[in-house]
């Protein structure tokens, strides 16, 4: 299974766009990319998933490089509520359920 590498922390001011990168150099053709985030005292929350190219939803957008070794989660106009730990997860979609591996993630700090 592919291992992911994320920056341990990032900082931003309210209103800025934030791009969180995730490197998955050994990603297999069967694997998809998932992003979750976790605010303090709550469980993780699904943000977005993708396989290739570009995916967008009401919360974020996800850009995946052509070789699929790098993905970038983009959060437009962050607010204080976006302060959280962001997890990038790579796993086969047909993998036996429950094998999502949450690493240490990227802690995003947002300043007013």
């Amino acid at each position, binding site marked *: 299974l592919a291992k992911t590498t994320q920056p341990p922390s990032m900082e931003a001011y309210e209103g800025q766009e934030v791009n969180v990168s995730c490197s998955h150099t050994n990603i297999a053709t069967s694997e998809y990319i*998932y992003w979750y985030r976790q605010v303090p005292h*709550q469980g*993780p929350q*699904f943000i977005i998933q993708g396989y290739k190219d570009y995916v967008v939803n009401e919360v974020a957008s996800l850009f995946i490089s052509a070789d699929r070794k790098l993905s970038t989660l983009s959060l437009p106009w962050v607010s204080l509520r976006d302060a959280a730990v962001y997890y990038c997860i790579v*796993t086969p979609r*047909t993998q036996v*359920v429950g094998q999502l591996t*949450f690493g240490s993630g990227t802690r995003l700090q947002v300043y007013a």
Partner: protein
Amino acid sequence: GGIITQTPKFLIGQEGQKLTLKCQQNFNHDTMYWYRQDSGKGLRLIYYSITENDLQKGDLSEGYDASREKKSSFSLTVTSAQKNEMAVFLCASSIRQGNERLFFGHGTKLSVL
């Protein structure tokens, strides 16, 4: 929408004690999970269940038992609490096996004296 409810929110136990954590979901999801999260760390899978009365061990199952007697509920038992243990236990569910969009509860924070 649905919700996952974990009880209790906080659990204080004594060393060697058997402790039970409960989780209920009203999504009507087939699959449920228990994860453990230590302070500042990622999540580790303890047990999961793909349907009523099914149990599957995760990477961290030693020292734990689980029970899925109903589709809507999944309980986790710490068989013998370890002194000074402190962690958050997170319950989650997904619509079916192989769907990686998980919905999580708010967690049960365990402290062992």
